């Protein structure tokens, strides 16, 4: 950290670079807006062991904030970079005053900055000068205001009754007209006139409300432009409204196939802010449920991927296996897809009687099924013909576009946050990180399938070594506190009452925590202003940068290949749009 600070200050002048300390210990620097491209280029290309991935880019509306540790700012733009060589993060912040809301774009530096900058523009109205295509990305083009600014209402009831007079309707209809120029697409080239095909938002191959504008020459794809935002529910805005405790169920619905895995990413960040240590039993319960959800999520991907290339049957087998996982989840949590089961400081309740038998049955049952699927799907000639050598990208490109998770490992890069930055006691488990070599659709499948086997190994170790003890921390901010304590001492009872009725007050500060979620790295960056709700909730999801890459990896293939590529990427629309 000191060395980095020294280097930055040597290069850009001592007065220009200020440091800030945060709860998560990630080196955080304040840089003037005009220096942003220079500083980021320095970090990406010039220093040894560079920060090669733009992990996240977002903004914060700081105007009404009370507790600040950084510079005075009305709007702050945050660049979160990741270095694989150092296994370290760095956060660059830049302060913008109200009124001057422009700073240079870094699209030429990182390909995936494009969408992130559009998102910051959409949500905060921050202008990135030199951005090739600065339009709204999540909200409709006709939207008024910028939703994540503090003055923008959070609830429909604050906005007055909805009205749609004929002239407004006409305007909205006009805005829906497809004009290729607005999407950055040419109508014709020298020798051909292109066909534009609108794929989605209602299409069986897109797994959700995703819209793609295809520029076609015959059936060959010249370009693809994804249109996202149909699933946007303002999850980040809701974080500023719900208490720290009551926001947990909303996280379930971000990557809705990942279930409690989303709780974990959020709670690790909250617990970091609050300084809570989670007891071992709770940690292992969390790991077990997360890995079960990883298998469940990969099963959905497996079946739908096979269906995308035209195989009808596998999806039914895989869904019935997933049902068995949901039986276990249901017995433990009471819920299925959205169990909302983790709590600040632990999990909601202890494991039920008989859980071990259910898990043991599943461990005995599942490997046979996986072998069967290998024969049915992975070894099928037609399936291989459809997926080998399709949608290829290499490690360099994956990093450039911000790809994490199986998509990155399929290119041969062995990078798993569970191994590299163990959280929630993952360092105590014995498992491998599967990698593949070619980075095509087939290899992405190979990696995920092997991951299911490894997850099963982890679940098995959880079963055999489940520690005894508390399932919730005894920290006063644990919400709600363990019931047995509440019944016996008045302090805990008061705590219980306040934490449930108001919500816990998390100490002011900023913290980020990322995990290896089902689809890649999912992380929550939380700012507490010392109140019962979060001041800013930033959700970094793996699907967002991967979807941005579609255009890059689909060019030159056919429409049929595009569906295979979409299927191999394993995204969830709620994970893209939040």
């Amino acid at each position, binding site marked *: 950290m000191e060395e980095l600070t020294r280097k930055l200050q040597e290069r850009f002048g001592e007065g220009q670079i200020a440091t800030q300390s945060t709860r998560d210990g990630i080196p955080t620097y304040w840089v003037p807006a005009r220096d942003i491209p220079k500083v980021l280029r320095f970090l990406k290309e010039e220093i040894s062991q560079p920060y090669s991935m733009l992990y996240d880019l977002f903004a914060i509306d700081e105007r009404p904030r009370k507790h600040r540790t950084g510079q005075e700012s009305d709007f702050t733009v945050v660049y979160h970079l990741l270095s694989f060589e150092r296994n370290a993060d760095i956060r660059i912040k830049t302060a913008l005053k109200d009124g001057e809301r422009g700073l240079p774009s870094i699209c030429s530096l990182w390909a995936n900055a494009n969408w992130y900058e559009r998102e910051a523009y959409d949500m905060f109205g921050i202008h990135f000068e030199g951005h090739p295509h600065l339009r709204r990305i999540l909200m409709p083009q006709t939207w008024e205001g910028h939703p994540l600014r503090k003055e923008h209402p959070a609830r429909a009831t604050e906005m007055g009754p909805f009205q749609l007079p004929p002239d407004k309707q006409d305007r909205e209809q006009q805005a829906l007209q497809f004009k290729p120029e607005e999407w950055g697409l040419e109508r014709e080239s020298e020798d051909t006139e292109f066909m534009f095909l*609108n794929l989605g938002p209602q299409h*069986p191959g897109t797994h959700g409300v995703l819209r793609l504008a295809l520029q076609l020459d015959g059936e060959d794809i010249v370009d693809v432009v994804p249109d996202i935002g149909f699933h946007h529910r303002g999850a980040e805005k809701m974080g500023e409204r719900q208490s720290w405790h009551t926001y947990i169920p909303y996280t379930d619905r971000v990557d809705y196939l990942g279930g409690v895995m989303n709780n974990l990413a959020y709670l690790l960040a909250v617990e970091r802010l609050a300084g809570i240590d989670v007891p071992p039993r709770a940690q292992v319960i969390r790991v077990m449920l997360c890995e079960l959800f990883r298998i469940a999520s990969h099963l959905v991907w497996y079946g739908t991927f096979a269906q995308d*290339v035209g195989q*009808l049957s596998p999806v039914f087998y895989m869904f019935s296996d997933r049902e068995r996982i949901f039986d276990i989840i249901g017995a433990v949590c009471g819920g299925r897809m959205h169990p909302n089961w983790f709590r600040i400081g632990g999990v909601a309740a202890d494991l039920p009687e008989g859980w071990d038998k259910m898990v043991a049955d599943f461990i005995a049952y599942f490997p046979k099924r996986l072998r069967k699927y290998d024969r049915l799907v992975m070894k099928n000639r037609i399936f291989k013909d459809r997926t080998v050598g399709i949608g290829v990208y290499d490690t360099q490109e994956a990093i450039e576009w911000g790809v994490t998770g199986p998509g990155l490992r399929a290119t041969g890069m062995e990078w798993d946050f569970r191994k590299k930055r163990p959280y929630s006691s993952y360092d105590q488990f014995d498992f491998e990180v599967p990698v593949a070599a070619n980075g095509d659709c087939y290899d992405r499948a190979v990696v995920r399938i092997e991951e299911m086997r490894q997850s099963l190994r982890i679940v098995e170790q959880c079963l055999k070594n489940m520690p005894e003890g508390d399932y919730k921390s005894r920290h006063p901010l644990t919400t709600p506190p363990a019931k047995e304590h509440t019944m016996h001492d008045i302090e805990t009872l008061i705590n219980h009452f306040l934490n449930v009725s108001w919500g816990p007050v998390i100490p002011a500060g900023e913290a980020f925590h990322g995990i290896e979620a089902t689809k890649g790295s999912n992380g929550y960056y939380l700012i507490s202003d010392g109140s019962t709700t979060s001041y800013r909730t930033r959700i970094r999801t793996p699907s967002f940068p991967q979807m941005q890459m579609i255009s890059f990896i689909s060019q030159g293939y*056919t429409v*049929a*290949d595009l569906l295979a590529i979409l299927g191999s990427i394993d995204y969830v629309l709620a994970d893209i749009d939040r």
Partner: protein
Amino acid sequence: MSETLRLWLIVVGVIALLLTIAPGLIWLERRLLGWWQDRKGPNRVGPFGIFQPLADAIKLIFKEDWIPPFADKPVFILAPAVVVFTAFMSYAIIPLAPGIVVADLNIGVLFFLAMSSLGVYAIVLGGWSSNNKYSLLGAMRGAAQMITYEVFMGISLLGVVMMAGSFNLSEIVLAQQGMWNVVPQFVGFVVFFIAGVAELHRLPFDIPEAESELIAGYHSEYSGMKFGMFFVGEYIGVTMLAGFTTTMFFGGWLGPSFLPGIAWFLLKTFAIIVFIILLRGSLPRPRYDQLMGYGWKILLPLSLINLMVTGYFLLR
């Protein structure tokens, strides 16, 4: 019984049989797929859900007959009729048992090939007149696929024709009394069957429809009974392919005499139908250009070699 009456009975009988088989097949396919895919399939309407296709047909008939305003209306209406018409027509030449055949044509095999080629018009016309980009892509794929597979579908049958010395289906059946054609003409059978499934554009060769890519391809815009007609056509097509394969390669009505000839024919046809359904349940869909390449580069040479080898043995 006069000759005319007998012929009329056969015609009505065959049409009635086909009209019952089509919905029956829909039910059978859904039940079988359900069984193979660890689920139930339709089981509510009537015993074992057997009236489900009837309920579906009633629903389809009473649906609003909607034609998209941007469609080419006459062609749009004509296309589904073409499917059913060609499928029915080609059944005319298939002998169910000795003497039970609508038209015992001397050019039976050629008639079958002609009718199945006409079937492609349904796809092209339907896809074109819908004026929808997905339909258009489907129609394009359909036309290319049909033209490719048409070529060696005919060539693959020539071995059988050479062995029987006739294009007449009844004579082809009678020529198999010693041994079913599937043994000496195994290559021909495989090529023909693949081409046949491709002609029917059923999974794994449902490239013109490609649910997950083109939504429903050439019949995206169809609804109501017009949509139903495409399905009736498809299922009669399945029966026809199975019946024709039985006739050409599995000895038609021939079989041990404890069952009448027609029962043997129906049994064999049924087994082939089940096999076609099983194919649908198990294989993924190749890409359009892969299918073309496979056809031109592997199946066509294979059928030509088969033809030459057959010729060599016959003329030796």
